[in-house]
């Protein structure tokens, strides 16, 4: 069942290489209503290790929600998205693309790769915080997510 009702924090994985954006997202989540734990990986390779609980990430929980930037070092967001959505254990985790790219081809490609939604990072701070709060609200309280850990 939904984690929030059991009082356990929601596990969120943020894949973002820009420390400034990481910090802004953290600030936004601080203002949120939902008890959450934000994990951060700084590139695509690290993100896949986290999700597959490899290496340093052997003991991390499986996230309830993934916030994924598209332009990442080593392995970019599109590849990460493709890998998640073709992995039978990971494909049910909602992936929110959170990027500065307004390019139509990025929007199209992301949805073709089964991204759950695509959000262009608002420039304005207030709007950015609002967007993050809405993401949190929608994906962690309104929608019913698949039971964690079940196949």
């Amino acid at each position, binding site marked *: 069942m939904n984690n929030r009702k059991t009082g356990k924090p929601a596990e969120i994985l943020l894949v973002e290489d*820009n420390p400034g*954006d990481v910090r802004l997202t953290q600030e936004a989540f601080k203002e949120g209503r939902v008890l959450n734990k934000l994990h951060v990986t700084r590139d695509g390779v690290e993100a896949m290790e986290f999700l597959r609980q490899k290496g340093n990430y052997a003991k991390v929980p499986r996230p309830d929600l993934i916030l994924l930037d598209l332009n990442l070092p080593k392995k970019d967001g599109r590849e990460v998205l493709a890998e998640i959505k073709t992995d039978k254990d990971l494909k049910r985790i909602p992936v929110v693309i959170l990027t500065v790219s307004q*390019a139509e081809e990025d929007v199209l490609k992301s949805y073709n790769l089964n991204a759950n939604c695509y959000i262009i990072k608002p420039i304005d701070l207030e709007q950015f915080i609002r967007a993050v709060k809405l993401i949190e609200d929608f994906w962690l309280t309104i929608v019913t997510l698949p039971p964690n850990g079940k196949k």
Partner: protein
Amino acid sequence: MEDKLKAKERLVSESGKMRQRVAEETGRKRVRVKTILKREEYIEDILHTVREPLLVLDSKRRVISANRSFYQTFKIIPGDIKGKVLYDLGNRQWNIPKLRKLLEEILPKSTVFLDFEIEHDFKELGRRVMVLNARRIFHETKRMQMVLLAIEDITDRKRAEKELKQAEELRQAITALELSNRDLEQFAYVASHDLQEPLRMVSSFTQLLAKRYQGKLDKDADEFIDYIVAGAERMQALINDLLTYSRVDTRGESFGPIDSEAAFGQAIANLRVAIEEGEAVITHDPLPPLIADNSQIVQLFQNLLGNAIKFHGKEPPRVHVSARQENNKWVFSLRDNGIGIAPEYFDRVFVIFQRLHGREEYLGTGTGLAICKRIVERHGGRIWVESEINKGSTFYFALPTGRR
């Protein structure tokens, strides 16, 4: 006696040899004369066979003979020229200084000149480019100096070469343009990603700073923060507009039949807030169908109407839009009662980032009309403005009707 006899025999023999030699010599001479005659015929034959215009002149530059090609190429009536000085031909059209110099100065010294190029304006033929070759020859039978002059008309070849060169230059220009378009597209991509990222950081953290520390620092700090935020916002607007501008060509949709009145209606709908706030009155005549990129025509109307509302005069803005057909073009006009534009700026207003007003007076990045121009040009049309200061402006754009 015997001696006398021998001497007589020798004499007979000698005279016989002598006769034979004379006969032989005479024969040889006869052959030589024949050869000379033949050679003359031979030259005449060559003269008339060669496709290149040829002239034979005497030492006073009078025409002895000319071939058919000469008559044809230079439109000269045959038979009319023998004995005339070359320079006098065709009402002295052949009195060409450079030709005179060649024949009178260079040829006497060197017996031959090769591949001299001259250009000349002929009355009927127009400007021709010719290549001249000449040789001084000695006519054995007539015992006289002659000049064989070959005149090749290379005007067409020159023109073809020029056209070929122009075609090649055009091809290179197109390649360069394609490359620069690709660069621009690449730039657009960089602008949309890499430039916006740091900009977002500046504006976001400044705003965060303002949010947390507004009033806790001093008044100056608050003012500085405002300037940073405003600067970042403006940079953002510039980047976005530049992106739109650069994508008019590369990201445009394909052309199809559209209703320009519907596109106009869409532009009005998009401008609803500005129209209401500015109490603008926008009227229009029936507008024609077009073969165009619908979203770009909406953008075109929107930018032009937006400007008409923005640059209003003392009265609330009034805009009238109409279209008239002119040959195979629809000429649209948007007439407003705004502040107008001075004539010296009629062209400049369409240049990207050109602004005629300070930022305190009117907001904007100076890309609106540049985008309009690019859209109209993509559609094979033209945009221009007529205006009078304090009376209003009329923006015109002409687009192909799409019918042949």
